């Protein structure tokens, strides 16, 4: 049984192919202006990696903001449900998931089977999401992947930033830099502000010790460590936290197929 999950997010498109319960291939690419094309492209790349074609797929589930425009999807399921399912696949004991995506951030509670029991999304502001980190990286001329590590190496003292608005935070960053603050200290402020913001979100759904972080910001050690400190918890992070939603979609595809008992004709 071969199934696929396609997650078209606001900043990246992800695809995962599962054979029975094993990941055969996965991929992620930036989301372009056309979500359908992104879906096609990331799926083609992943199929190629697995040496398969679309015809070999028994069932496909799409998720993410662009889930409804994936032309070859058999069913679409929301990213909150898929993230819970994916996190549960990686860490079966999980009860709380923090998905820090490109444009939004979600705190999710789930039960022992990975079903969502409660969730909360950040409001329309991008301050708690990956885009805010991209803006900071750009402003501080620091590669995104180095931000977290540098933020832990505070030179003098953390430069506090507003946790409410990325646009205002930009102004604050410039103010700190003009006052001679070290770049690392400003990065520390940015990671701290984000961690503080997501802490509130997690508290809204109720804290659970078995905790997973998914999404691109899970790769930022500066944010992750600060969240862990604030929560007094150790976060579980899989080898590629950006594919958790797509994986969840692929697992759903498998489960649907198991129930239906027959593959989808393409």
């Amino acid at each position, binding site marked *: 049984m071969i199934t696929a999950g396609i997650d078209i997010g606001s900043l990246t498109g992800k695809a995962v192919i599962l054979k029975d319960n094993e990941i055969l291939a996965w991929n992620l690419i930036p989301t372009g202006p056309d979500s359908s094309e992104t879906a096609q492209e990331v799926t083609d790349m992943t199929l190629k990696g697995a040496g398969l074609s679309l015809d070999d797929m028994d069932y496909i589930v799409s998720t993410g*903001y662009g889930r409804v425009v994936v032309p070859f999807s058999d069913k679409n*399921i*929301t*990213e*909150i*449900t898929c993230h819970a399912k994916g996190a549960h696949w990686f860490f079966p004991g999980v009860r709380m998931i923090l998905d820090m995506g490109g444009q*939004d951030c979600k705190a999710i509670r789930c039960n022992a089977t990975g*079903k*969502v*029991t*409660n*969730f*909360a*999304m950040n*409001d*329309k502001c991008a301050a708690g999401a990956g885009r805010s980190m991209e803006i900071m990286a750009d402003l501080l001329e620091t590669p995104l992947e180095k931000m977290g590590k540098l933020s832990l190496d505070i030179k003098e003292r953390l430069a506090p930033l507003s946790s409410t608005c990325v646009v205002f935070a930009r102004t604050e960053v410039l103010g700190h830099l003009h006052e001679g603050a070290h770049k690392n200290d400003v990065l520390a402020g940015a990671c701290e502000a984000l961690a503080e913001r997501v802490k509130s979100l997690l508290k809204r759904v109720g804290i659970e010790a078995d905790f997973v972080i998914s999404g691109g910001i899970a790769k930022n050690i500066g944010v992750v460590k600060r969240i862990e400190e604030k929560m007094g918890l150790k976060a579980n992070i899989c080898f590629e936290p950006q594919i958790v939603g797509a994986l969840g979609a692929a697992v759903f595809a498998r489960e649907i197929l198991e129930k239906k008992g027959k593959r989808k004709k393409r």
Partner: protein
Amino acid sequence: MATKVTTPGKKSLETTAEISKAIKAYYGGVKVAKEEGKPIIWSYGLTPREIFHALDAHVIYLEHLPLMVGAKQLSGHYIQVAEEEGFSRDVCAFHRCFLGCAVASERDPYLDQFFVDPDIIIATNLPCMSESKSFLYAADYHNVPYYFIDAPINTWGQDIPDYAIEYYTGQLKGALDFMSEHGLGTVDWDKLKEAVSLSKKLILLWNEIDKCRQAVPTPMGTVDGLTAAYPLIQLPGTQLGVTLFERLLKELKGKVERGEGIIDDEKLRLLWFGVPPFYNMGLLNYVEKYGAVVVKSMIEYIAGGAYDPSIMNPDKPLESLAYKALVDIVNPTSENMVNFIRRTVKDFHIDGVVGVVKRSCGLLPGYMRPVKDAVYEDSGVPTTIFDLDGLDIREYDDATSKANLDSFIEALLASKRR
């Protein structure tokens, strides 16, 4: 201003269409009255409307008018006009919208059909103090007399003490005297008693309408309900309000007998807590693709649809109106609001509560958490809460709103299947 793509709500009932016509006729009447030189009052939907009907007064209500403007996707424009006048984005969107309509140098043809300048303003602090401030500004702007009815905040729940009733009754008497002094004539007490009697009939009918709506499948959802609630807002104390509700009840009884729901296969029943997006009521129909129906909304009760009608005694008209106003669920007592929502969830067989936060409101967002906890504790029914300003279309984010609804409904359906 760029207009966002929105969908009007899909109504299902014939009587709702009649009520829509009654709304237009009401405001048309206000315009004609102004042209005939009769005094026009600006007031608020929680001022006992029965006193105005007893005086045959013509009134524009601060909260109802923005809803109508919102339904035409015009609220964003008038809100911006108020902001250009210097009102902060933190001021209630309803008040900004109304003030924008009041001070706009040019009004669009829709608003111009019924919007008229005031001759008297009767303000109150029920449910929120900011209303009195907005009306003070309007009174200065139009240079008209202003009267303030002070309502005690309800800290007692259902048992309003005599001294509070006495105090508020005094406030109403003061308002009647004030209106008499400004050309509205002397109150006809028999007419006021009749208005209280009709108001009681109206709420008894509303309670019967509610019973019909509790049927599964429901014969009437919130998209119709918000229009149907108009008689509660503006017509308590009138025969027209009673007649419209009698017709509505008859229509609903027929649907219940025939087992007709507003959708074919009703799987989930939702309660909307907070202000729905009046500029995009189609969002409430959006959930129907999942077999979900927004059966009821808190806002339908906001002008006094949630009290025990036995408190209405026509022989004590002002005292009855005082009781009705003070016990209203939005007179800031969390006990009445929370208990009311608990009861609604049970009576209407609700599967999930959708709570939307209007950031410029100083009242309703504070109820979200206690309501969520109480409903879950009581019935195990979950609540989702997200930001949505029901009036300021500029703040609306369709993708995020739908993402929240999609995920919530998916979780509800999954838990039903368990």
